């Protein structure tokens, strides 16, 4: 992450960018690309708002990196709404996000795994598959790949699945 470029994009002084990096918990001296998900999304039903910090490449859509809202199952919205926010928005000073979001690539597709101490659809948090036909998902992945946020697991490893509820 190039701090000077980020500083310019955010229009901040040296002092302001140092403070901003510390407050947003992305690493003070060597900021790391990061994903976070909003606990309560606004603007419609069944939406999850994902923000990404990282300004490498050309697929970002925000000065700090990437942001978009995704249409999701209502169980995820309920689970997110019960979480205590731990991190600030990259677009404001509002604490409304949680971290622990990892994009993992399998032969069958990419998952978003939200690691959390509270069980969602899996004991370790929430496991989601990304709809590969969605243009917004494609945009997220293009940006995430540029910022080394998609981890390949290697050929032959099966995507984890969630047992169907009875």
């Amino acid at each position, binding site marked *: 992450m190039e701090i000077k470029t980020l500083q310019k994009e955010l229009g901040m002084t040296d002092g302001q960018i140092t403070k901003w990096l510390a407050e947003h918990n992305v690493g003070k001296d060597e900021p790391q690309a990061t994903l976070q998900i909003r606990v309560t999304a606004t603007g*419609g039903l*069944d939406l*999850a708002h994902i923000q990404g910090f990282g300004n490498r490449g050309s697929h970002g859509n925000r000065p700090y990196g990437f942001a978009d809202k*995704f*249409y*999701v*199952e209502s*169980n*995820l919205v309920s689970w997110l709404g019960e979480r205590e926010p731990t991190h600030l928005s990259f677009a404001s000073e509002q604490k409304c996000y949680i971290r622990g979001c990892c994009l993992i690539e399998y032969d*069958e*597709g990419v*998952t*978003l795994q939200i690691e959390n101490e509270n069980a969602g*659809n899996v004991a370790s948090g929430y*496991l*989601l*598959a*990304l*709809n590969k*036909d*969605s*243009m*917004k*998902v494609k945009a997220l992945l293009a940006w995430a790949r540029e910022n080394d946020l998609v981890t390949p697991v290697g050929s032959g490893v099966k*995507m*984890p*699945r*969630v*047992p*169907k509820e009875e």
Partner: protein
Amino acid sequence: MHNSVVEGIDALAVTMLKNPDKLIIPDRIKDYTVAKIKLGESLFNLAKQTGHKHAGWIDLAGGSYGDIYDNLFWYDTFVTLSERFDVPMSWVACIDIYPVVGSLGGQWAVLHESEGEVPKMFKNFNIFDKEGNCREMIYAAHLDGVERGLISNIHFPFDRPDVIKDWTNEANNHLETMAEVLDKSVEEVLESLKKPTEHELYTPYEDDDSLNK
């Protein structure tokens, strides 16, 4: 096939008048409208009962016709009637319609003047607004009619206000720029702006074979 949008909308209005059974408001719409009417009556009653002590409820109780028959009611109306009469929604939206709703049922009424057996429509079918400009919904109806092959003459015969033309031209330029930057067609960009019908992030269940496609 009609010669022009005006001819097409007029014909639709006449068809509506001849088919009152298709103008019955479905229970789903009637029920939420009646519920809002009853809430309005309850609020108005509260304001009347407390007005001699305080004016706390006066502003809220000053509701209007538009609070009951709001934009979403009209959108629901246009969706329902366009499906029943198999025409674009914009065609229905050009016709002067008013709802009559009661606890037992509801009906959309079409404003018209009768002339003998054939209803005469032109009086209440306003092409121009008070400033003399063509109503934008007429232009929308023209474009929708051409797209669905309902109108033979693709030339739009009226002038639109410059300020509205500038606004839509700017939106069109922005859309074309987006398409160029994203290396997509305009149709693909518009599709991406829609709320999708399938979840973009979803639980990968054990028996879900969609991931293997």
